[in-house]
């Protein structure tokens, strides 16, 4: 049980709790805009950036972030070109990211490059620099989302109406893309690239069936994220399970419970 008091575990808890605020919050907006898969895409691109970071010896998370931002612009460009085929842009950039990552990983063979820790996360290896990055990302994302909550709601619900209201829709879209890239890059080390989108999308999926209002869903997604991450980390610590996988499976359990609970009221 003394793993729970170990310093690395406490760091994991802090990092996890912070990501559990931002990831589901941003994920809610992405899911509602039918961009649920954007998390996966940016995560894979980000991995390519991490590999590149190792190769050129620059803080890998930062390189991952830059590449993710570039990719998010790419997605937005393709999304505009192929209106109403949002998923197409995502598929293209995603495979591009994986291709680049696999290429860089082979080039980097022999370097001290632990692929698994980025694919599946390594929350126990978070250092103070990682925590600092996650904290900064949390402050930025939380600040922007709370300040622009109304406008983001309108943009998400009805992009045309937002535009007719005189909101700078294009800048808002760019803003969301950048925030997403920030959150993904910061959370890769925690849940791993393969599982990043779980924390983005599953809380939102629960709120779609559970909440009556937008206000409620904002509170609900964060609450679900926190429960899954904190409980998941605790269970993983006690029973020596893979933390990322435990968190994601807990999220799925919560989703199933929500679906069963609401089965009678909705078809």
């Amino acid at each position, binding site marked *: 049980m003394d793993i729970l008091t170990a310093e690395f575990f406490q760091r994991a808890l802090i990092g996890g709790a912070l990501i559990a605020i931002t990831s589901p919050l941003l994920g809610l907006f992405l899911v*509602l805009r*039918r961009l649920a898969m954007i998390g996966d895409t940016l995560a894979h691109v980000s991995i390519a950036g991490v590999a590149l970071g190792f190769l050129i010896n620059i803080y890998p998370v930062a390189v991952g972030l830059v590449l993710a931002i570039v990719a998010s612009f790419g997605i937005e460009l393709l999304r505009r070109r192929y209106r109403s085929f949002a998923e197409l842009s995502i598929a293209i950039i995603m495979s591009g990211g994986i291709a680049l990552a696999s290429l860089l990983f082979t080039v980097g063979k022999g370097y001290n490059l632990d692929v698994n820790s980025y694919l599946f996360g390594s929350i126990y290896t978070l250092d103070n620099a990682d925590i600092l990055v996650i904290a900064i990302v949390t402050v930025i994302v939380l600040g922007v989302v709370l*300040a*622009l909550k*109304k*406008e983001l*709601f*309108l943009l998400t*619900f*009805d992009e*045309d*109406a*937002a*535009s*007719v*209201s*005189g*909101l700078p829709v294009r800048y808002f879209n760019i803003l969301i893309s950048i925030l997403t890239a920030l959150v993904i890059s910061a959370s890769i080390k925690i849940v791993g690239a393969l599982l990043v989108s779980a924390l983005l999308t599953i809380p939102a999926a629960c*709120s*779609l*069936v559970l*909440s*009556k*209002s*937008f*206000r*409620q*869903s904002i509170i609900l997604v964060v609450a679900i994220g926190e429960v899954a991450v904190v409980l998941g980390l605790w269970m993983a610590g006690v029973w020596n399970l893979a933390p990322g996988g435990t968190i994601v499976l807990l999220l799925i359990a919560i989703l199933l419970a929500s679906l069963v609970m609401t089965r009678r009221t909705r078809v």
Partner: protein
Amino acid sequence: MTTTVVPDSVAPDPNVAPVVAVSLNDSNERPPASTPSCHREIVSLQDVTFSYGSQHVMDNVNFVVRERDFVGLIGSNGAGKTTLLRMIVGLLRPTSGEIKLFGTPMSRFKEWQLIGYVPQRNHFNPLFPATVREVVLSGLYGRRKLLRRSTKEDHLRAEDALKTLKIGDLAEKRIGELSGGQQQRVFLARALINNPKLLILDEPMSGIDTETQNNFFNLLLHMHKKHNITFLMVSHDLDMVRSYLGEAPRAKSGKLSFHVRHSHDLEDCVETDLLHSLRQEG
């Protein structure tokens, strides 16, 4: 494709203005088929042309919507009705030509709260977690409200808009649970919450039953007659439009025709004209 624009039957003639008072009786007998020129231009289209790639949708459309006009825009499928409305609200840019809103060219127009827009069949996700109240309130979120919290007054306005459209009891329902007609009212309430001067509606009555349609149309007419709102509406329902706006279109452009009815009597105009002339003399 050429365009024929039927000229204003009573074209504003500045030279005649001072003597209008004399011909008051005359003007009373004439149905108010055209808009008195004393009202400011709300929307003006000058040689508006639009094409998707090589496909021409409309060529050189010229038309002016004046304050208190109710304009019914009619045309067959593909005539460009929706395209025209989307250009007027800035969602599409004309290939050439100019659109002015409240006298200001589109590119410099900032007063978007003056315009309420109800798009054709809102295709939002029925599972979207938003209440009717949240959707109506979102009509206030624009440039002016950026980075500001919703105030108590905002909530009162939402309440008023909900009551006006008789959907107060639905306020806490999820928008997706409502019927088509109820949803249409929600979007109209959202458009009305800003007290707009101009309401733009794109086939507001499609997909709802006849009785609801009639109620809805009567509501629009009431707003036009009593609340001095200017309307620009695309409609499929020729009967309904003709019954209020008359058989003959004011203007035609390609496959688009504009039916217009003005909401107030000509005398109002004459008064202001008279004042103007008195002021000039004095």
